[in-house]
């Protein structure tokens, strides 16, 4: 057993830190902390990372990837989260990019991968539908072949940041008559400028517009936009599940939030002394601290194990506890701020996001972030789904 990075790993980490802290503007990282990040922030940040070869490290080397070890990948994600650098757009770098690199045609690779890595194209994900959330394979959108085109009809929802989407990768039924619901599904790329697409923004609990609904009415896309083979889309979608082990627990993010919480507690006067001296608050901090340590250690333990395209029980464990923990931390921040936590100013931020009325650092928009973070245990495979994966894949139940 060993608790230290090798000198090489330490150097690797230091180099990353230089980029994260010195190249990515401090204002952007500050907005991440306040939960007020804009489209421009994400684009700017990803381009800076890409410039330094750090946007798509897990891609094949010919498309900008690095051959990092599991430990290096883990250091990368943790440091990124701790530095409050916006994570490179997951739809681009973790989803459609790897799929195109693995299953796409050479033409698709050349057309899309460089632009995807540099966020010249902003991708949206078109998987969920109103009647197909947790039951993804129950999707109903059709893409019927008509000559050299697919004609797409249907509805996609929960499209995160879809308002910025230049292109969408979606799952649609190319063979609606297939026997099993997982069959007859294809993975298709759609230019969002194509006629027949209508967007309905969905306002969330905290007032933000982060997700959207899209309606497809006879939307015609060339068959060259099909990725891989027709009717094999479900296989490609599953390839994504459990593909992400390092980021999913959000250890770096939770470490950052914990540190902010401690700093704020030290500055918050309560009746006798500061909040950091309050025994009740200390007890809650310690519980959170040890859960975070358990999570980080678990991530380090399983980082080496490989995913094989099936839903990964290690990912499920990390997501289950990782989301619960980050949610608890936002709840703790809420309590720390008291009445100040729930204040929201009327001045809208650059991205339509409201900014805090409270002058207090820790309290500012704490309630909004707390409410927004409820999504963690729902989106991207709810915690109920994760429990099911653990029960089936690990426990054989």
């Amino acid at each position, binding site marked *: 057993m060993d608790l230290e990075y090798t000198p090489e790993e330490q150097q690797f980490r230091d180099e990353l830190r230089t980029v994260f802290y010195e190249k990515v503007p401090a204002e952007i990282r500050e907005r991440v902390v306040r939960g007020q990040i804009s489209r421009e922030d994400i684009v700017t940040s990803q381009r800076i990372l890409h410039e330094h070869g750090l946007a798509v490290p897990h891609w094949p080397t010919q498309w900008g990837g690095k051959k990092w070890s599991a430990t290096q990948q883990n250091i990368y994600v943790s440091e990124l989260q701790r530095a409050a650098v916006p994570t490179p757009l997951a739809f681009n770098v973790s989803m459609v990019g790897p799929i195109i690199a693995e299953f796409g045609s050479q033409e698709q690779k050349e057309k899309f991968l460089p632009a995807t890595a540099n966020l010249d194209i902003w991708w949206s994900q078109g998987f969920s539908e109103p009647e197909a959330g947790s039951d993804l394979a129950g999707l109903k959108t059709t893409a019927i072949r008509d000559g050299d085109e697919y004609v797409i009809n249907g509805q996609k929802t929960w499209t995160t940041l879809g308002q910025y989407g230049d292109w969408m990768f979606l799952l649609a039924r190319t063979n609606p008559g297939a026997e099993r619901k997982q069959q007859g599904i294809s993975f298709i790329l759609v230019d969002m400028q194509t006629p027949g697409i209508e967007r309905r923004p969905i306002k969330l609990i905290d007032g933000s517009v982060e997700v959207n609904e899209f309606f497809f009415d006879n939307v015609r896309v060339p068959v060259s936009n099909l990725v891989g083979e027709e009717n094999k889309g479900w296989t490609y979608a599953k390839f994504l599940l459990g593909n992400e082990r390092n980021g999913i627990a959000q250890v770096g993010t939770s470490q950052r939030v914990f540190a902010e919480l401690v700093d704020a507690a030290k500055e918050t006067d309560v009746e006798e002394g500061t909040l950091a001296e309050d025994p009740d608050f200390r007890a809650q901090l310690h519980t959170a601290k040890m859960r975070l340590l358990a999570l980080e250690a678990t991530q380090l333990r399983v980082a080496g194990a490989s995913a094989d395209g099936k839903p990964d029980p290690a990912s499920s464990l990390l997501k289950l506890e990782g989301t619960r923990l980050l949610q608890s931390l936002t709840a703790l921040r809420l309590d720390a701020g008291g009445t100040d936590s729930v204040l*929201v100013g009327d001045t809208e931020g650059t991205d339509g996001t409201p900014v805090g009325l409270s002058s207090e650092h820790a309290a500012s928009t704490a309630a909004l972030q707390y409410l927004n973070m409820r999504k963690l245990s729902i989106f991207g495979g709810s915690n109920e789904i994760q429990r099911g994966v653990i029960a089936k894949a690990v426990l054989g139940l």
Partner: protein
Amino acid sequence: MDLTLNEDQEAFAESIDDALARKYTAEFRGKAAASDVGWDEKLFSTLAEIGASALTIDEEHDGLDAGAGEVYAALYALGQNAAIEPFLDGVYLPSWLLAASGSAPDEVLTALASGEAIAAVAHSEPGRVWDAAPSTTATGDGDGDKVTLSGTKTAVAHADQAKWLLVTASGDAGFGVYLVNGDAEGITRTDGRTADWTRVSRVAFEGTPATLLGSSGDEARRTFDAAVARARIAVLAEAVGLMDRASKVTVDYLKSRKQFGVPLSTFQALVHRAADLYAEVELARSVALWATASLERDAQTDDTDVDATADDAFVYIAHAARVVAEEVVQLHGGIGMTFETPISHYAARLTSIEQSYGGVAAARRRVLKSDSPLTAPTVVRS
């Protein structure tokens, strides 16, 4: 020994629920919150006509002089609909402070009773805990109770619509509550909202003319704290109303929403959690009713442990509110996160209630320093 509302109180709650349930949808609530005043004026008038605004005011000022049970009934029904009409912060709490002072202008009380106007209580200050002495100062100008105020208050609910502000400040003789006209000179307002879309403002005073209400000093602080304790108990009735309706909406959703081709109610893991939710709500209801009954009893017997009762109940129900708010969203899945469904409004309002009047962490601190943890729990007094 009776911990239930009487028939009149039940009927009163139902009449409010009837008036609200016909109109209140997530869309209606969103529009009302975004309107000029921050709530629905017509609905406020309707409820005032039923008696909601007159409840806590004495008969001399056209009020109904009702007790804690009626306040519970009103706020419970408002909570059931996640209504944002400002009865607690705009009418009841101001009326308690005014009545306690013994020196409230008649026209203020009668205006509140009729629902013609509301008042706002300005106590929170930026970055200061609720229990601290106000940093806002009251400086005498030699004319008895007439002073000028300087300082900044925050989280002042509905300050933009309030005809009067009740402002806490530190004067020569210590703590006092001061009456200020909403349009008095030297007031600078920055308007915002809370996470549940209630309108609140930061209000800065600079040489603003004000009148002391009642006495000042430690006794005035105790009186203020007792009125706030009543508000803490009252807001718990709203919380129970919110929890009750939110969990019912969630059960209905489990019955109707399908995943994997079958209703969610087919999934036993969700069904058992719904049962736990029911238990959570019923137990919280009992605590809110106990606190309300304690308040009624204290009003008759001159006991002064209303602050302790309020803190005990607040700590318990704030915890339940968090559990319920989180579970109803989680059990709804993505839908529960959206502004267009009622469930998100219930969750947001429950979250705000946890942090109301200084918040749950401060209440826990007070409780843990008091004798309460070592005192045997018992509902029955004798």
